[in-house]
């Protein structure tokens, strides 16, 4: 058995009956607040004929309608906020399915809850005050950077807000500052490992001890590779900006699933087709209800992430349910270098460029020691084909810059022959994911 560490042992090990009592109280409270302050919820709950007073047990949850990402889009940007703007102290955003971003807001209290769940995450890996946290998640609208930052400070660790990129400098800082904790995407951890190996760095001689890796899908194979190359424990962290950001669920050193911070986030797994709960241990779509969020309470929010929930107690002593690493999506969203990408976003760019055929293919690959790459294949047409290479390069560059400005992600554009992208009846196959993450 691995050694168990806690940031907040009382909350994390709360006996189930007490935890469920707390959840029920908070659920009634959030439903009441949402009804009072969010027009969408007021209308939807009225249609469903449900009020906070009707919720007598956690089982009553399933009488409440779902919330989906498009609800946030339809109420862009702040239409689902449940507090006046003078109580909002932070705004983040992530990709939406079309042009509009998904915007999320936080009160001071929400930032506190977020820092708490990140402190639990780091604490579960044995991090504590005195640790030096190198935070190589991107800082900005993306929740990874600031989420880990505030949580590290709350824990009392010294956080280095280095953000992503400039890999050689990452290695230098790691050596010079004596970094003990690394936070970044798992593929970036391997990029750092590769760069360090080229510089002749011996990780067994560095104080680096543990890493928290998330914001993109990864595998047990990658865990082994990261652990060997960096000589650390590599732990998974899960979250999504709509619910709070990273810290919704986290691994302990048992590395046997991610503990959901259930006192703040009520978790369900449903059949994505029927919306009904799946039997315990069955794979389905994760659904969260925020129990304590103030600025943006979301009730039965469908994440589209597919996984399995495990109710068995963990050897570490935490009482909360564990989710397996996410093993798929019930929609076509891709996560590339921590950025959410919907094929529909790329399609809207391509159809807007004159002469470019609407047939395209997205090819995602992860080569050893490299970050994920997104290739956008575009068919050349009689109209766009030119005998002069500079004209073809200009076309590639135009498509590239339009896509990059929409996605905020660098991509590669590849011109291919007409009709070489397979046509299919009905829903066209638009994505080839060579990363083999979900097998």
């Amino acid at each position, binding site marked *: 058995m691995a050694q168990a560490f806690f940031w907040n042992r009382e909350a994390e090990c709360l006996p189930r009956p007490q935890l469920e009592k707390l959840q029920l109280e908070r659920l009634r409270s959030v439903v009441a607040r949402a009804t009072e302050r969010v027009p969408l919820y007021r209308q939807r709950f009225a249609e469903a004929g449900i009020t906070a007073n009707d919720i007598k047990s956690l089982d009553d949850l399933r009488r409440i309608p779902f919330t989906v990402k498009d609800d946030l889009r339809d109420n862009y940007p702040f239409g689902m906020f449940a507090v006046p703007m003078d109580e909002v102290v932070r705004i983040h955003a992530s990709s939406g399915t079309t042009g509009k971003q998904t915007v999320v807001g936080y009160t001071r209290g929400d930032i506190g809850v977020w820092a708490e769940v990140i402190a639990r995450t780091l604490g579960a890996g044995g991090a504590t005050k005195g640790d030096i946290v190198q935070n190589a998640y991107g800082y900005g609208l993306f929740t990874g950077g600031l989420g880990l930052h505030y949580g590290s400070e709350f824990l009392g660790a010294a956080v280095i807000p280095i953000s992503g990129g400039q890999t050689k400098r990452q290695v230098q800082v790691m050596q010079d500052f004596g970094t003990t904790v690394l936070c970044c995407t798992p593929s970036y951890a391997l990029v750092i490992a590769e760069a360090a190996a080229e510089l002749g760095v011996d990780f067994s001689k560095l104080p680096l001890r543990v890493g928290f890796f998330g914001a993109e899908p990864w595998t047990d194979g990658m865990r082994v590779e990261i652990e060997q190359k960096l000589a650390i424990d590599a732990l998974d962290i899960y979250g999504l900006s709509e619910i709070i950001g990273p810290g919704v669920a986290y691994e302990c050193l048992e590395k046997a699933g991610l503990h959901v911070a259930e006192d703040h986030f009520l978790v369900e797994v449903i059949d994505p087709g029927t919306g009904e709960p799946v039997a315990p241990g069955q794979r389905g779509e994760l659904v969260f209800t925020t129990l304590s969020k103030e600025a943006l309470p979301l009730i039965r929010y469908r994440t589209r992430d597919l996984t399995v929930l495990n109710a068995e107690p963990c050897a570490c002593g935490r009482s909360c349910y564990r989710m397996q690493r996410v093993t798929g999506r019930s929609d076509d969203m891709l996560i590339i270098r921590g950025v959410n990408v919907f094929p529909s976003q790329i399609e809207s760019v391509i159809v807007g460029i004159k002469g470019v055929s609407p047939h395209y293919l997205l090819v995602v690959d992860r080569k050893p020691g490299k970050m994920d790459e997104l290739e956008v294949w575009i068919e050349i047409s009689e109209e766009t*084909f030119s*005998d*002069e*290479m500079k004209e*073809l390069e200009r076309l590639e560059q135009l498509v590239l810059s339009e896509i990059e400005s929409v996605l905020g992600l660098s991509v590669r554009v590849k011109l*291919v022959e007409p009709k*070489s992208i397979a046509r299919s009846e009905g829903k066209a196959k638009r994505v080839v994911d060579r990363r083999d993450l979900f097998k």
Partner: protein
Amino acid sequence: MKVSQISVFLENKSGRLAEVTQALADNNINIRALCIAETIDYGVLRLIANDPALAKKVLSERGFTVTETSVLVVEVEDKPGGLARVIKVLAQSGINIEYIYAFLTRSEKAFVVFRLENMDEAAAALQKAGVRVLTGAEIYAL
């Protein structure tokens, strides 16, 4: 003065060029000259055939992306300084070259294919300098 050149978009995958040359062979089309410009992902095959219209039709029918472009073909002496003389004329006239390739026949002459910024101006400048610019009919019959 302008000669019709056929350009074909070719993805970098094995057998693509073979399909082009086979299609031309099957239709008894003779290639006078050709070159390929390549990138990581694709190439552009440029060729001068003895029957450009038929070549274009045949390749389009086989699913290739084909475009027809005008080029100038000039005769140069097949000896040191032959090409230099022609290029000098263009340079002095301030005409930019997009691309260039050359071919030989069983004569003492070499032929150079030019794609230029301003084809008419270039043709006039070359002829004025005494450079022979070939017509399409002359090339196709070579």
